[in-house]
Every structure is written in structure tokens, then in C-alpha cells.
């Protein structure tokens, strides 16, 4: 018996001694660590670089090409082909397309990003509550959600926009209402799964209350899935929002907007196909890059993959 104890103690001692020789364990700051892993993913880096360029262009749109140019109608320029002066040509009202894309992008991306955040926060909160507390709380939330989901998204959004009027804030409300349902289901299923984990039980045995368990044990573990969904949704919302403007329910004219530009270009598609090409390309590039970045972020945030 004693011998056993001694060997055990020796083994433990040896293990500690061996570790002493190892260089100190240092955690690089969390952000640095994520960045290091993110950088390894080439696709995501390309996506990120393009996105940064796009953001810079959008932020400095006013300097590149002031807003007046985007809404100024010059009759001589109607359907002008791309040229040195108007690199992307001019539309059916004689407005500079490049400038419209830049200013339209500001609105499109701002709405997409904010609507994604709000729908994520609303949906995740409801989903976490439903999944964690279960019982009647779960029933109420999920049945209410079923009602929401039984109305087609587009109809729902249209109703909200028509009822409240088309402007920036109302569009956000409409898009949030259309998209939060995904997060409720997603987060609820994650929470259902994660709250069965032993570390959650261990946290409870350690005296943690419900709020702490949800915020510091369950949500961080669900974060990977949520982030991937957020990035996918940003892309979706850009497209969805274009659909709304395409139907005439987006930002009111003359405010340029990518979907609206597509809708206007459709009428003159035969005569000037390039009018369709540029806004469509803008939407596709943005959506693609955001997805690439999302992919890389998911990998970078997952501590299991740390080497």
C-alpha cells in the first residue's frame, strides 16, 4: 500500500518536474489567437480583404463621388455606356451608376448588418429562454413562433413595411421580424442539447444560477453555430432587402439602393444589360465575401481546433 502511494507521489512529482522545463504557458490575447488561426484560411483572408476594400469605398463614398452625382439626372447621359467619366455607365435617368452603387451600398450593408444583429439578439434570447426553461415557457414561445412562421416571410415583411411606411427604421423592424425565427429554433436546439452536458450540471452543483449558466456556459458553446448563421444571414438579408426594393418596398427614391437599381435596370435590360450587371455583381461579391469570412471565423473561434 505505502509503496503504491510512494510511486504515485513520485509519478506526480516527475510529471510536475517535467513540466517545469517546458517554457511558460502563455495565452496570447484572445483576439490575437483568433486572428492567427483566421489568417491561415486563405479563402477567408481574400474575403476579408475584399470586404475591407468595399467598406473603405463605402465609407469614403462621399469623397469618391458625392451624393449629388448619384441622384443628379443628366438627360444627355441617359443609358450612357461605361466610359472614363462614368466607369459603370449611366442609368435610364442619366444618373452615374458607380456613384449610385457606392451610396446604395451604404444603405444596403448598414441595413443588412443591423437587421442581422437585431434579429440575432431577439431570436437568440427567445431561443435560449425557451430551450433552457422548457415547460410552458417553451410552449408559449414556440407556438407563437409557429404562427409567425406560418405567414410567408415576404408577405409578412410587405405587410409591416406597408403598414408602417418605408424608411430605414421600419425596414429594420420588418427584416428583424422576418429573420429572428431562424435564431429561435437554432439557439433553442443548441440550448436543449448543451444544457444536458455534464459541465452545465457541474456548474449548477457549483452554485451557479440560471442566468450565469446560460450566459457563461451555454451561449459561449453555442457561439460557433450562431456566428456561422449570422454571417450566412447577412448575405441572405442583403439579397432579401434587394428583393424588397425590387418590389418597391425598400428605401424611398431617389435614395439609391442595390435592389432598387436592379429593378430599374430590368426595364431597360435589352438596351443596357450592363445596368443589371453592376448592382448584381455588387450583391454577389458582398454576399460571397461575408460567407467566406464567416467560414473562417467559425474555424478560428472553435477552441477544439487549436493546435
Amino acid at each position, binding site marked *: *500500500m505505502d509503496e*503504491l*502511494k510512494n*510511486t*504515485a*507521489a513520485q*509519478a*506526480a512529482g516527475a*510529471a*510536475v518536474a517535467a*513540466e*517545469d522545463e517546458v517554457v*511558460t*504557458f*502563455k*495565452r496570447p490575447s484572445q483576439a490575437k489567437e483568433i486572428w492567427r488561426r483566421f489568417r491561415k484560411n486563405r479563402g477567408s483572408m481574400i474575403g476579408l480583404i475584399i470586404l475591407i476594400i468595399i467598406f473603405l469605398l463605402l465609407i469614403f463614398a462621399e469623397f469618391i463621388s458625392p451624393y449629388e452625382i448619384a441622384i443628379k439626372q443628366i438627360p444627355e447621359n441617359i443609358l450612357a455606356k461605361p466610359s472614363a467619366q462614368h466607369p459603370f455607365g449611366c442609368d435610364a435617368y442619366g444618373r452615374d451608376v458607380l456613384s449610385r452603387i457606392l451610396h446604395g451600398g451604404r444603405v444596403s450593408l448598414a441595413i443588412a448588418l443591423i437587421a442581422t444583429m437585431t434579429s440575432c439578439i431577439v431570436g437568440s434570447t427567445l431561443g435560449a429562454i425557451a430551450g433552457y426553461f422548457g*415547460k410552458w415557457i417553451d410552449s408559449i414561445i414556440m407556438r407563437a413562433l409557429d404562427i409567425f412562421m406560418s405567414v410567408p416571410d415576404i408577405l409578412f415583411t410587405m405587410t409591416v413595411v406597408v403598414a408602417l411606411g418605408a424608411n430605414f427604421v421600419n425596414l429594420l423592424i420588418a427584416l428583424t421580424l422576418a429573420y429572428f425565427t431562424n435564431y429561435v429554433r437554432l439557439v433553442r436546439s443548441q440550448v436543449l442539447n448543451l444544457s444536458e*452536458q*455534464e*459541465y452545465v*450540471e*457541474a*456548474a*449548477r*452543483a*457549483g*452554485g*451557479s*444560477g440560471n442566468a*450565469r449558466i446560460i450566459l*457563461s*456556459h451555454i451561449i*459561449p*458553446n453555442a*457561439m460557433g453555430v450562431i456566428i456561422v448563421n449570422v454571417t450566412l444571414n447577412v448575405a441572405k438579408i442583403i439579397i432579401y432587402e434587394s428583393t424588397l426594393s425590387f418590389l418597391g418596398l425598400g428605401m424611398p427614391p431617389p435614395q439609391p439602393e442595390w435592389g432598387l437599381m436592379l429593378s430599374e435596370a430590368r426595364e431597360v435590360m435589352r438596351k443596357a444589360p450592363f445596368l443589371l450587371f453592376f448592382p448584381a455583381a455588387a450583391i454577389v461579391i458582398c454576399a460571397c465575401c461575408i460567407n467566406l469570412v464567416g467560414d473562417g471565423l467559425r474555424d478560428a473561434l472553435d*477552441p*477544439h481546433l*487549436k493546435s
Partner: protein
Amino acid sequence: MSDNITEVKEEVTTAAPLLSIKDLKVTYRTDLEVVEAVNDIYLEIGKGKTLGLVGETGAGKTTTALSILRLLPNRTGFIDKGEIFFDGESILDMTEHQMQHVRGNRISMVFQDPMTALNPVLTVGDQIAEAIKLHNPHLSAAEVDQKVEDTLQMVGILPQRKVEYPHQFSGGMKQRVVIAIALCCEPELLIADEPTTALDVTIQAQVLSMMRDLRDRLGTSMLLITHDLGIVAQTCDDVAVMYAGEIIESGTTKDIFLGGRHHPYTVGLFDSIPDLESKSARLNPIPGLMPDPTDLPPGCPFAPRCRECMDICREKRPETKLFGETHRIRCHKFDQDAAGTVVTDEPVEEEGGKQDE
């Protein structure tokens, strides 16, 4: 209520147990069936003592542990009757808020599988710090940090490793971390639910010797749940053998390992341990399986498997008999034995069955 406590405290003065469980009955109820997981058990753990709770899978060991922390599954686990006193306070009468102060602070638990008991996305240091901050909100960040390092040092992990994630640790190291989390608030009672089952034998020895060491150093009482009698012999002061939700034999480690009288189940348990010296080709297992807890026999639950089963065993549940100071056996075999006295454990006055919400 207050009468109850004073009454218990009078009893306490003689033995001064830290934890005492009286007449506890726990059932799991679903729409389909009622599982009688724990039936009328009595347990006591003295201050600074270690009690080993032994029994095969499904005997109700973990259920007993979860009842002490009131962590039975929300919608299915119910404490039907009985009382649990911790340091003179009735645990079953506490509010959920009071319980949160007890859990992790005064009673903490080490889980069976260290691989899943740690949160994979938080660093080890953060997880220990969380437990410390939770129960010591007045500490400054630097003090918490210092305490995290001290705790890691205590369980034999390099403090610098606090910035690492659980997946960077080996199994035995993870169990050390789990123990560090359980001990960082210096609890009065540590419940260890098969702490070494998931570890291999050499690491088992390390973790156990560390636990013994810490127990002696911190003066913590311990409830050690295990099915390994070897661990019990090395670690425990007292032993309780559980079978089908009942404690069929209990006593000091000496009583159980060296005593002359034993419950046939205990005898069977010892027989089924491989022995290095004997040359028998086969182990000697206890035939049969544990009775279905949804349908326990009316008599002694062990009767269907017992080699010494008598007629009365199938009809009547045996009384607990006390031999000497500490050794209790619950078996009809000793009904006629003059050496023992029947312990009439006074049943706790029922309060209509409490529910654990």
C-alpha cells in the same frame, strides 16, 4: 420547524455529524412508471470523516448524492419523504437561493467523467475563477487570480497553465482541475461521485492520494461514491453498502472489512474481487441481477439472489440491527443473533411528502 432543528442538534452533540440523512426516500416518476431509487436510508458523515458509499450500478448512490445538493432532475426526481441535515440546517427546507450558497461553497461535487465536466470553451483558470467569484464576490480581480494560482498549485498543476483550455490537459490532469474547482471555496463536504472511474489505474492512484492529502490538509468531510472496494479500504473511515436503494450494511471500514458478521450481499461483493494469492480459475460473482427498481420485491430486495435466503426474506423487510458501536446490518439472518440490538430508527414525522422543485 425550529423544534425540529433543536431536537436534531441535541442528537448531534453526541456524534456531531456534519451531514445526516434520515429516512430518505427518492423516486423518479414518469408517465409510465415509478422508479424507487432510494428507499428509507439513514446516513451520517462526521466532521472530517470520509464515508464510502459502495454498491453496483443503479443502486441509488448517485441519486443519494444529487439529493444532498437538491439537483435531482427537475420534472422526474422527487424526494418523497425524509430529511437531510447539513450542519444542523435542513437542506430540504432551504429556498433555491439559499441552496445556491450551499452548492459549490459549503458542499461541492466532483463528477465522474472529467472529460465532460469542464466547459470546453473556457480556460481552466476562468472556470476556477468563476467558482471563486461566485461565492466570494468581494474579492478583487488580483486576489481571485492569486487564489486560482494557489488552487492549481494545490492540486499539482503548474499555475501558469491556467490560461490553457481543458482539451490541452490529459484525463488525470482534467480531474485535478475538476477537484480544484470543487475545493477552491474550501467546502465543508466534498461529494466525489466515482472520481476515478474514468481514469486509468496509475492516474487513479495519483488522484486518490492527492484527494486524501487535500482532505487531511483542509479538514474536509467527504462522501466517496465508488464501486471499488480497494479505494474504500485505502480512503474511507466509514462504509455504507447500498443495494437496490437501501443501505444493507454500514459501519466503520474495520467493521466491513474485518468484522465477523456480514450481510450476504457484502460477502458476495468481497468474493467477486480477484485475489492475487488464490489460484482459483474463475471469479465468484453474485448470480442474477439487481431487482427492477420499478417493481421491488415485498421482502428483502436481495432475497432473489441470496444464497442464504429463507422464507421470511421473501415476505418481510428485515430490520436494521446494530452490532457493537457502529456496525449495522439489515438482514433476517441475524434476527436471532443476541449480540445485536434492533435499531428502531424513529421515523421522521411525515409532512405530506416534499417535492424537490
